[in-house]
């Protein structure tokens, strides 16, 4: 068992594991809503748009995590608002304005980072740096989980109604607009927490892979909600171990492990997997052939 416990002799690994578990669970739980509401593109754009906020905060206020957190938050809100303004005031559709703003803000982030007086490693923000978590980082991750998880659990019923069909939900009295804004807010918060683990480029992986996996295995929303959290947590921790043992980049390993779990479900899920679909088709063919022969 020493291969399992050995990594924990290092304090940075203990921190990283704690961070991974929290970030994985929070993002995994949220992923049910991203997948069902088809917000993947939106989430990706928002993740990328965190970068200029981080960079600007770095230049103006220095490297403290709290500064970076507020910078990212403001950047995400500005880009979200910009998307609404551009698509609302011109004939440009929402996905186009989203794509445009995301590319521009990401580029702006890269330029700002290169101008930063402090010597920063850009790859930490692009691909994550979970092994370098400070106490402040851990506190931010913990506080974000303390906000996101209880809100998701408390509002899961009205959110489920909203996911299923917004107009029916509204007719039942679900406050559709405030709930949508809340969901966006929670999305930004949990993305900021995953910034440390996997970075802005890979954040989307943690935000969709867990629920997409369960979506192929179950017809229950509750399974997607809780199962997404559990898969997110276990997958992230497993990715961390893999990166430690094989000495590979941690963010990429986390997303790859989640991807492997997804593809396993895609192939072998008993309900909606490719293999069972193929076998069922074969089975149906045999049955109809037998019926035909009986005649």
């Amino acid at each position, binding site marked *: 068992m020493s291969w399992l416990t050995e990594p924990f002799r290092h304090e940075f690994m203990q921190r990283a594991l704690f961070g991974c578990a929290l970030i994985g669970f929070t993002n995994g739980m949220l992923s049910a809503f991203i997948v069902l509401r088809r917000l993947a593109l939106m989430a990706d754009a928002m993740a990328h748009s965190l970068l200029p906020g981080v960079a600007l905060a770095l230049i103006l206020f220095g490297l403290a995590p709290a500064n970076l957190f507020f910078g990212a938050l403001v950047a995400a809100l500005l880009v979200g608002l910009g998307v609404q303004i551009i698509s609302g005031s011109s004939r440009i559709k929402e996905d186009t304005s989203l794509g445009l703003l995301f590319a521009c803000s990401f580029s702006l982030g890269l330029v700002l980072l290169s101008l930063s007086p402090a010597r920063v490693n850009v790859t930490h923000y692009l691909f994550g740096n979970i092994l370098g978590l400070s106490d402040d980082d851990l506190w931010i991750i913990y506080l974000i989980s303390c906000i996101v998880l209880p809100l998701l659990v408390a509002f899961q019923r009205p959110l489920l109604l909203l996911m299923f069909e917004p*107009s029916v939900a509204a*007719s039942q009295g679900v406050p559709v607009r405030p709930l949508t804004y809340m969901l966006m807010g929670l999305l930004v918060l949990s993305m900021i927490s995953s910034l440390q683990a996997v970075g802005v480029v890979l954040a989307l992986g943690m935000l969709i892979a867990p629920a997409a996996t369960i979506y192929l295995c179950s017809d229950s929303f509750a399974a997607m909600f809780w199962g997404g959290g559990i898969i997110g947590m276990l997958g992230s921790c497993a990715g961390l171990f893999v990166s430690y043992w094989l000495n590979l980049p941690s963010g990429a390993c986390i997303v790859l492990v989640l991807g492997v779990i997804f593809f396993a479900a895609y192939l072998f899920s008993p309900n909606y997997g490719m293999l069972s679909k193929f076998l069922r088709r074969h089975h149906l063919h045999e049955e109809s052939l037998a019926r035909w022969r009986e005649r």
Partner: protein
Amino acid sequence: MAYHRVPAVHHVSLDLQCGHCVALLGPNGAGKTTFFKAVVGLVPKETGVIIFGGHGKVGADTDIAYLPQRSVIDWDFPVTARGMVEMGRYMRLGIWRRFGKADAQAVDNALRTIGLNDLAERQISALSGGQQQRAFLARSLAQNAHVFLLDEPFTGLDQTAQNLLGETIRSLAAAGNLVIASHHDLKSVPELFDQVIFLNGELIAFGETGEVFNDENISRTYRTRIFSGVHEHHSGPEKST
């Protein structure tokens, strides 16, 4: 009701009673869906009131259930027929209360009334079109709704499914509910509905099927009508009722 200040539905004044099956007839773009959405509060009314159960109705109400067209629903959603019916109870429970025995009982009753208890554990895309419509009706029943607004419930159903759904909505009306369904197949109106609303931007006619369902009202409703943006009756700024 108006979209971008162009009136979509206006001059509609109706007195509907519970216990009836009402057809909402009109060509495409006549404002049938808008009419429903205004009743449940999804589209703001420019002017006008809805009096429901003796009091003015503001916003959403669990007494009124709206069933959208089948095409707007994501039928791959991870939920079984029972799960969908359970959703009808959610707003009654609020945020903290548990889904209790009384709720489970209400869901069972709704499924039994609609005749779907054998299919309750199926994922909703594994139901046929008619069964999907009836599952939605069961959800509204579990919600304790008394008014059912159905947007084109018969579209895409074969004859057997149509008969079964027709039977279901008539029995809902017989039990004291009000069912209003937008409908396209004029041939089946007399057998399915006992009252008819003719709508084309404004109310053309409303009454018992035997009295108002005639060639004159049909041709008045379905004639080609292009709205120029200038209201015929008013010279002042556009306003819809």
